Structure formats: C-alpha cells, structure tokens
C-alpha cells in the first residue's frame, strides 16, 4: 500500500495519452486539456509511463512518509489506519510479500560436469525435455507372445516440464485465457481453467486444457469434465491456504456468468472446504467419481497448498487414487486474497517439494503419482532446481502474466487492471492481443526450455527425467544445518 507520486519532466506535449491509459483514475484531464494527477489512486502499474510518447512521465514513491520505526513501519501504520476506519479485513492480490521469508531457490547452487564425466553440448546432441506426468506402471506386463502390453495409466505428455497455473475466467480476462491456450498448443503443454468453467470458444483447445473442479463446482458438468486432458480437484492454493474463493457479483457479467453458470450479478462463493471431502477416503471417492464419469481415460490431479504437514497430506493423496499432486507454495499468486493469510500462511515450495518427494520415496509410492510444483517459479533455474528437489514439472502463473504485461502492481482485486489482464472490462481487456500474447508466452517458455537444456548438458544429463529428485545436483549456501537436512542437500563444497 505504498503511496506514489506521478511526476513529469519538461517536454510534455499534452497528448493526454496517459490519462486515457490510466484505468485507476489517477491521471485525468480537466476541460482545458490539462492533466490532473490524483496521486492517491496511483498503483504504480507503469501503464502511463510505458505509453508516454515523449518519455517524460515517471512515478516515484511519495517522499512524505510516516516516520515509523523498524517495528511500526509505514505499511503497518497505514494498515492500522485503514482497518480502524473500515473495520474490514485487508484484501490484496499477487503472491506473498513476506520480506524475511527466504527464497530457497536463491540459496541453492547447481552442479556441472568437469573432466571425469563430460558435459554434453545441447547444440549438437539431443536433449530430452519430454515429460510424462501421471502414475507409472508398477511392472512390465507381457502377453502370451511375449510382447509388452501397454499398461501405462492415463498421463499428460509435456514437451517441456513447464505448464501454466490455474487462473479462472473471471479472475483473468478471456483474452488472457486465449493466449494461454494458444501458447499451450504451440508449446505442447497445458493451461488450466481454474474454477471458472471453460468458455465455449476454448473447447477447441481441449487437448491442451486441464479443467478444474473446486469447492464451488462452478461451470462443472459432464461435458466440461470430458473436455479436459486432465481434471484437477482444487483443495487449496498457496496464496490463501484454507480459504475459499469469492468472486464478487460485479465481475459476474456476460460470458463470465455463462461460463461459470452463475446468474449475473450474484456472488460466486467457493466454500473453504469441499463439503463432501472430510477425509482421504472422501477424496478418493471424488477422484474415482471423476474417473468413472470420464471413462478412466484421463489423469485426475489434486492441488493443495504447501502447508506444514504437506508430506503426510501428499502421501494420503498418492493413496487416494489421484494420478498427480500439484503443490502450490507460499509465494503463489492470486487475483484476490486476504493479505494477512497471503503473507503468513503456508511454506515455500522448495521445502514442500523436498519433504514430499522424500516422504513418497520412503513409502515407496513416489511412482504412483506425478508431482507438479508451483508458487514463485521465476525462471529456468528455478525450474531446474524444483525438478532436482523432486518435481516432475512446474507451473507458472505470475511469470506468465508478466510476459503478457503484468507489472506486479498487485491491484488485480480491483478489477481495473490497466494491462487488460485481471479485468472483465471490455475496453481494458482489449488491451491484450491474444495472438501477440501467445507469441510472447511461446517465446518465454521456449527460452526457458533452451536454458534448461544448457543446465542439463552442463550436468552431463540428456534426459530431464534423470534430474528428477537428483539432490546431488544441488548444494546450499547461507542455510543452517536443519534447512539443509530438510531440503536433503549438502552445503557448498561438501
């Protein structure tokens, strides 16, 4: 909740472009073609700055600060004032901002080959990033003639171990979903509907679509379930573990209403728990019920937030009959979450992955499930480190939105996204060209895939599968012994 000031150097040509681009009403015009700045409304989304043709506009933090101290910082004081005024809980968006919670990815270094085990040059040798996600057959079966029987349970096939996280139509615009779906098709990966149903125009992408079933069951029907390549049961998400969803009636308009199958203007509330799931046995029942209705042809995924006892939870999920566990870490983004929950609940994905992989291996059930990690994956090295910690693949949400123009102003919950992403305003959502967006997503994931191959080559690995759970490839720095023990890695130089 920082306060900003909108400023300009000399040379403004009064084109008024900034005022027409600002969706938060921070820059307006008066009758005399002069700009009026309403600093208090500015979110620092940088839309005006990007579109100023003379490059004279800039945003700074307001110099007028509360004195505060190290304990009662300016944000703390501001938040107390807001709550004293309104009596309401604080609502924000994007991922956690707990400043002192370590980003373990940045405290781990990867290995490379030297002399004794030669590295591989990805430019001249094939590098396999193809990833299968799902159960692995427990044994090889042969028929009477001795031929191998295909007993591979249903699975997802990814050309690269990067997918797009669940973001619902309603939280993001249809154009964003179009870009995600189109990019997934071109990349040979998957995007995820979130709990908002599947828009009619996107059914054609079903070979690259994961459909979600969450506690509100919005937009869920037989045709929807069968339209997905996989079905994800969402129990929780990293940005707000234990909290349900609430899409306000204001955003339930037109096609959003149609796709969610919720009357226009009525709130869409996803209860915190699924009221038909109170145990692993109940979860197993829903997993099998979805399998039954989809003819046992599609993998069923279960998405949970990374919380303190994630290892036994994952073990339960692996035993529930689900094919894939999706773990969303502390830093996972969202379109709207209570700020206190976002910043104070859950654990980072790196730790969750390490303990889940360890637990599933100890119980000899790691091959019963695929593991997908999400929540704060920023670049290809995070992907490689996540896989080395035990993930089969990762999914990216905030990074994908950033590729589409998001500037992390964390104002998604206002529905006024100036970049046309987290909004249902027709005019604003036209600001994203889905084709151009798909191209940028394609470029991003292709670039990361290229970098992943370089990491693999450097380590002398030519198949991404050989990296999965390979903790020997990681060493920690700046971590204490307990952290190293939990992550299952040695210290640098060890």
């Amino acid at each position, binding site marked *: 909740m920082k306060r900003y000031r909108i400023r300009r150097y000399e040379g403004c040509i009064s084109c008024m472009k900034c005022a027409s681009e600002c969706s938060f009403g921070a820059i307006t015009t008066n009758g005399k073609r002069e700009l009026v700045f309403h600093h208090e409304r500015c979110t620092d989304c940088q839309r005006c700055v990007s579109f100023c043709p003379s490059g004279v506009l800039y945003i700074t933090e307001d110099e007028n600060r509360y004195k505060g101290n190290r304990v009662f910082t300016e944000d703390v004081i501001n938040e107390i004032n*807001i709550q004293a005024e309104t009596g309401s809980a604080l*609502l924000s968006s994007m991922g956690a901002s707990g400043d002192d919670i370590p980003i373990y990815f940045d405290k781990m270094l990867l290995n490379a080959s030297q002399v004794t085990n030669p590295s591989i040059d990805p430019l001249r040798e094939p590098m396999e990033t193809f990833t299968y996600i799902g159960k692995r057959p427990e044994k090889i079966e042969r028929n009477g003639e001795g031929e191998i029987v295909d007993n591979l349970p249903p699975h997802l096939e990814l050309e690269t171990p990067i997918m797009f996280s669940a973001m619902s139509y309603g939280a993001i615009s249809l154009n964003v979903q179009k870009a995600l779906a189109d990019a997934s098709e071109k990349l040979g990966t998957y995007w995820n509907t979130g709990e908002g149903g599947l828009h009619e125009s996107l059914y054609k992408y079903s070979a690259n679509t994961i459909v979600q079933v969450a506690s509100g*069951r919005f937009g869920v029907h037989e045709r929807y379930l069968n339209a997905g390549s996989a079905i994800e049961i969402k129990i929780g998400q990293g940005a707000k573990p234990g909290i349900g969803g609430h899409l*306000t009636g204001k955003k339930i308009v037109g096609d959003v209403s149609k796709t969610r199958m919720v009357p226009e203007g*009525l709130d869409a*509330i996803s209860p915190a728990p699924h009221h038909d799931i109170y145990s692993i046995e109940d979860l197993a*029942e*829903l997993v099998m*019920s979805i399998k039954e209705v989809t003819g046992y042809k599609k993998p069923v995924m279960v998405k949970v937030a990374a919380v303190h006892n994630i290892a036994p939870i994952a073990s339960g999920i692996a035993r529930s009959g689900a094919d894939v566990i999706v773990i969303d870490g502390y830093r996972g983004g969202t379109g709207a979450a209570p700020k206190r929950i976002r910043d104070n609940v859950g654990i980072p994905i790196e730790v969750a992955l390490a303990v889940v992989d360890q637990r599933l291996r100890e119980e000899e059930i790691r091959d019963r499930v695929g593991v997908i990690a999400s929540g704060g994956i920023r670049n290809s090295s995070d992907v490689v480190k996540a896989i080395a910690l035990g993930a089969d693949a990762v999914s990216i949400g905030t990074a994908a939105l950033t590729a589409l123009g998001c500037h992390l102003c964390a104002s998604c919950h206002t529905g006024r996204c100036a970049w046309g992403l987290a909004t249902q305003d027709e005019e604003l959502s036209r600001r994203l060209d889905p084709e151009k967006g798909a191209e940028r997503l394609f470029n991003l994931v292709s670039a990361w895939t290229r970098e992943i191959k370089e990491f693999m080559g450097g380590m002398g690995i030519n198949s991404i599968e050989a990296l999965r759970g390979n903790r020997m490839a990681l060493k920690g720095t700046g971590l204490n012994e307990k952290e190293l023990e939990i992550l299952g890695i040695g210290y640098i130089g060890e």
Partner: protein
Amino acid sequence: MKVIDIRKDGQSEIRRHEGEEILVKGCLGERYIGEGLKSGRMHIEGTPGNALASYLDGGEIYVDGNVQDAVADTMNAGLLAVKGSAGDALCYGMRGGKVYILGNAGYRAGVHMKAYEEKKGILVIGGKTGSFLGEYLAGGMIIVLGLGYEGERITGYFCGNGMYSGTIYLRSGEMPPNLSEKLKSRYVGDMEKEEVISPVVTDFAHRFGLSPKRCLEGTFIAIEPDESKTNSQLYVAV
C-alpha cells in the same frame, strides 16, 4: 425392460443401455451408478453405493431402497426419486434437475445447490434432515416435508448457514435452531404455497403415490438470505 445384475454385468452394461428403460438389481453398495447419464429411465433395486447419480445430466433414476453418501453430487439435470432415505452430502453443488427423497436425509444435504438460467436445482425430502441443510445455498429450492414427524423438529443445527440465494421451505411451524442472523425466516402465505410449493410437492407426491393434500397441509416456513447483510463489507482493498 433390460435387467442388469450389477454384480455380474457391472457399470459398463448400464452405460451400454443409456437411453433405454433398464432395471439394475442386486445393488449392495456399488458406487457411481448412473454417473453423468444423459437420458433413459433406470430402476434400481437394493442399496446403491456412494455418489449415485453424480453429474447426472438427464433421464430418470428410481431407487427402491435407501441410498448412501454424496448422492446427486454436481447434478445438472434429470430426476432421482428414492423410496428410502439418503446419507450425508446429498446434492452437493447440484445445479439442475430434481431429487426426491421419500425418507430422511443425513447431514449436509443440499450444500451449495444453485440455479442458472432455466436450470434450478430442486430437492424435496419427505422426512427430516440432519444439521447443515442447505449451507452456502446459491440458488434453487429445498423443501423438507417432515411427513410423520409433525410437531417435531425436522432439521438440525446450522440450517442455511452462509446461504446467499435460493430458498429453503420447511413444512413446520417451528423455526430451525440457531438460525444465522444473516438469514430471514417467514411464514409462507397461501399464494406462495399454491404457486411455488404446490406444483413441486404435487409432483413429489405423485411419484410416490402419496396424497398431495396430505403433503401440503399445515404451515410452511421459508428461509432466505437477508440481502441487507451481504459479505461485501468483509474486505477492504489495500
């Protein structure tokens, strides 16, 4: 009418005869019967297992005995009529179609039922229900008749907690215990009874050979969300 022995022929045989009139016999807890079916008429003998008729998308299912948990989960269309009682989590997230239970229902019946355009989930329970009836109700209609329990309490605690649309009707003169202050309750007038409740209850009564008059006699209470107490003040953006 095609007769299917569920323990010999299994689910696949039911699917093969979708759209026809069939009799499924010998049920002893087999789960997922009738899932996602779109048409046809199915008669069930014995006790089908959990998740009967979930995602049901049309057609009619008649059950002779009792049904278990998670029945009619996320049902979209069609009819399910049960001569016995139902277990917990009946009609969770149901969006359309009708579910008639002649006997009682367990806990969490009708949680998060909804309505959309021509779709409207309708749940009628002939007997009484456990706690948490119609929590988070987002649309549609739940009617509890309390037949044979006249003068007794016919729902448990937390009836309608968190509901934000739709209506719960109880054939009772007594308000449910600990009703949330975010809900409004009222006695149903003659006109509403005639126009809204009567057509549904009459259909219910006919399916089970009961007298509609008997099912409709006495006082009805309606429970609805209090629109002046919405959730919109819960949060403030930062």
